[in-house]
């Protein structure tokens, strides 16, 4: 073998090792992991999908635009208008007028949708945009104050066959079964609007009163 200049030898080794290691660590390992993960646990490996009758309607981890319907729990406001193929938050800083206007608009919307709710009982987080724009979680206090609105609208949808108080206790039960703390013992309580809304949809399906265009 020809003896190489030490620097040339380093250069040759660098080039080979850089390409080999990038392909091995970057491509081979993640691809193998992904293949194994898909076989072991297809559900969570695919992003916790919401499946109803075999059709995927979303993910339990991402909020969707239920804001136009008064039958469902409303998630936090989204700067990207709940566009699931994007994510992001306000480009202005927290004390910019852009951010203040967005928050005030969200507050007015929340108040007009949930009339009769006391201002001091609305958690600030309910009207504050999230980091991703797709945060499905809300504080439990933010879920409780939406119960009266949803219960009365569900009662209308069911043609008054069930009283408002029945729906109220149903909704309360949904919240209680889905609420969790964001840290053991010390965390504050929150609940997932996607889980709650799927509970409501299942209730509708069970009683055969599904609103038009919901499950298209």
């Amino acid at each position, binding site marked *: 073998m020809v003896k190489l200049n030490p620097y040339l030898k380093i250069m040759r*080794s660098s080039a080979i090792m850089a390409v080999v290691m990038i392909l091995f660590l970057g491509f081979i*390992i993640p691809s193998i992991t992904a293949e194994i993960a898909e076989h072991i646990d297809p559900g969570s490996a695919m992003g916790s999908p919401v499946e109803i009758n075999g059709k995927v309607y979303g993910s339990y981890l991402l909020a969707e635009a239920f804001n136009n319907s008064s039958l469902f729990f409303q998630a936090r406001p989204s700067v990207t208008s709940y566009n699931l193929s994007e994510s992001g938050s306000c480009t202005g800083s927290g004390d910019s007028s852009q951010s203040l206007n967005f928050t005030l608009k969200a507050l007015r919307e929340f108040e007009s949708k949930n009339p009769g709710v006391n201002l001091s009982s609305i958690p600030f987080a309910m009207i504050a945009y999230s980091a991703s724009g797709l945060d499905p979680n809300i504080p439990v206090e933010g879920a409780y104050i939406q119960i009266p609105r949803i219960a009365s609208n569900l009662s209308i949808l069911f043609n008054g066959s069930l009283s408002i108080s029945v729906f109220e206790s149903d909704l309360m039960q949904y919240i209680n079964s889905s609420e969790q703390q964001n840290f053991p013992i010390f965390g504050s309580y929150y609940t997932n609007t996607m889980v709650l809304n799927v509970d409501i949809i299942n209730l509708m399906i069970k009683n055969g009163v599904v609103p038009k265009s919901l499950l298209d």
Partner: protein
Amino acid sequence: MISGGSSTNFWLNFFVNNRLFSGTVIILIYLIVISIFGFIIADHIKKIYLGQRTILTGFSEKAIYFIEKISGVDENESHTFKGYFFSLLFFNLMAGVFTLFFLLIQTNYFPLPGQRGFSFSLAINTISSFLTNTNLQNYSSPQRLSYYELTIVIIGLMFLSAGTGFAASMAFIRGIIKDDGKLGNFFHDFLVAIFELILPLSLLATVIFLFIGIPETTSSFLYIHPFFSKSVIGIPIGPVASLEGIKNIGTNGGGFYGANAGYPFENPNWISNIVEVVSFTIIPMGSIFALGRVLESRNFGRMVFGVIMSLFMLSAFFTFFGEYAGLPTMSNLGLFYTGNFLGKEIALGISQTSIFASGATMTSTGATNSALNAFTPAGILGVLFPMLLNDPLGGVGTGILNIFTYVIFTIFLVALMVGKLPELFSLKISSKEIKYSTYSLITHPLLIVVPLGITLLIPALMSSFVSPRPDQITELLYEFSSAAANNGSAMGGFQVNQAFFNILEAGIMLTGRFLVMGFQLMIAQSFAFKKPKVTYGRSVNVGSFWFGFMLFFTMILLGLLSFFPVLALGPLLAWGKDFNLLIGVIH
């Protein structure tokens, strides 16, 4: 305010409803957990530093032998600074060129449907960013990257940059403990770092993330039919858990999604949050514990840990209290206000967002689980200052290099003040070490302040801002300190994908990484020729409390001297304005 199903008792009120108290406790628990895991891994890292056999050696030596054979590396060939640093630079250059061409060719000639091409400046910026462990993302991920780019370019470079950093620290330690003038073989160090430390830990992290429910798949989209909509939407998806694993273990920080760890797929709940915080602090923290064991001076290790933990607590609590106090414009709306929830996720809350943000800038991770530009001025100050000190806890490996430059500088100051001999572990500190540690300490502020000044003078660039004036300065300062400290945390707030910022930041990142690393390895080379001497107690005791005290204040003082004017114009001014502290002075 808790009612309904959860029973309202005294302890619930005490623990949960008092958010200031419970948040403080949560942050303390995080800090304790981080320290415990760092302590556990320290023994393994010590063995790697000393070249001893570890539990993984049986497996790793086969892989290392195989790769050394195909690339023609002789592991017994030990280099001096010149050969070592040349190997490091050329290896990174090759990796950079390979991935740059791959990225440019794929996006511009074989784009995916709907994929926009990378401009040359954006590609340069992206490659420099991932090559230097910075991970600033001027592109919006993941829509712009295919599966092959995400894996080969992003994940590949994440491993490479972490391995390079750790190899540099192995050479540095060798320079101190040996006296034959050699630093070792970069290729062998790199492979040992990858196969004995970084790869096993990142696989472990990936498995944990899989159990938590983070997606991991080879398909590019999760197709869904949203409620109330006839359309079909593809949610970008891919090897998220793999990327999260190396992103955190390698203190890289570049996320799969634009919102980084704020996106629920990357960080769905507190379990994933604490796993991520532990995984990006485990190697830096473990290296610091290992330092005391390797140098056979537990006191020194304890002192460094104490200083870094003080800085960590200062940063975390500053951020938390700032965020908890919130913005007066919002807290005066009359709502039920429990802190600044703008740009934060409910599943994580304010305390866990604060500790994540401050941990990400204490290390060189730069991941974020919140929108940093929605932070309060006080909160952002807590997140910003570790970057101004060049990430005290540091990245994989680079943390040790950075803390040593501060230690050497402090020894010099202390020795001058009290008239002792400037010595570190019985090795005399001469003008050469002082010179290079000063170079590396001065490079960092220069890389931040000079580009900041230039940018402020160009009106065309400043017009792309959306926020009021003091925030612009904060955002620019944050961007450049993130690039110079190889952190990668970003506030945004302006259009970063412009040729000017792309190229300027690429230059800052490459200089901030390789020039500073070169200076630091020069110090190691200089130590490598020195034999320990008997000291007779005339030298500075680097393991003592008072030395730690001096080190802490030297770091703070250097930071203040370099950055106070720009801090006053940025976050401090905005803070004063928010709380009306500047009545009649500034309108």
